[in-house]
């Protein structure tokens, strides 16, 4: 069965420091992978997505993610975190058969300290 694991429930980083949020997936076919961000009291917003091609994808707000098939991972990175990046981050996989189904990880809450 398809699944998405985000091993870190929460992460705290200092403003200006680099960030990496981990995501591992389980999916039998070629995965379609997404990262979404949810600010407090808001809906989810897409940061970036991977379908094929270059395994390093660039997203909005200075985020990038690298698809590593051998490790079944799609980790999100940002070189320098801003206080406004504090939010909940969700990794997701598009589950192909029958379409229209996206499976989300449990989320990682990012705290940014001054």
């Amino acid at each position, binding site marked *: 069965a398809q699944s998405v694991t985000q091993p870190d429930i929460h992460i705290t980083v200092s403003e200006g420091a680099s960030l990496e949020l981990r995501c591992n997936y389980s999916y039998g076919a070629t995965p379609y992978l997404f990262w979404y961000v949810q600010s407090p009291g808001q809906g989810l917003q897409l940061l970036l997505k991977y379908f094929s091609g270059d395994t390093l994808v660039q997203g909005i707000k200075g985020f990038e993610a690298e698809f590593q098939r051998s490790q079944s991972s799609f980790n999100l990175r940002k070189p320098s975190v801003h206080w406004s990046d504090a939010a909940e981050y969700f990794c997701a996989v598009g589950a*192909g058969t029958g379409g229209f189904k996206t499976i989300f990880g449990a989320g990682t*809450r990012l705290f940014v300290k001054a």
Partner: protein
Amino acid sequence: DTAVSQTPKYLVTQMGNDKSIKCEQNLGHDTMYWYKQDSKKFLKIMFSYNNKELIINETVPNRFSPKSPDKAHLNLHINSLELGDSAVYFCASSQEGRGSGTSTDTQYFGPGTRLTVL
């Protein structure tokens, strides 16, 4: 202009009541979804509709009944509300058309409806 809107934003009600949450998207998308986000922030799909046709029904009690009067609207009606129904419910839409076979399109989420059942 709001792309995906939900009403109400907050809903507080007693156990046993029946309530509805409305969702509208003005993006011209073919597919709409309902998700439930529990207190631990876990986001789980409930339903997916494509051009007013039910595509996904994910082990949701039949007290929950989605209705899609047209492809721009997907409402969620809940009968006999229970304490465990308390959550934030998100509506979303995507361009994805039928037969594409995979969930590749970006989903656009509404702001959520926080339901509290007392």
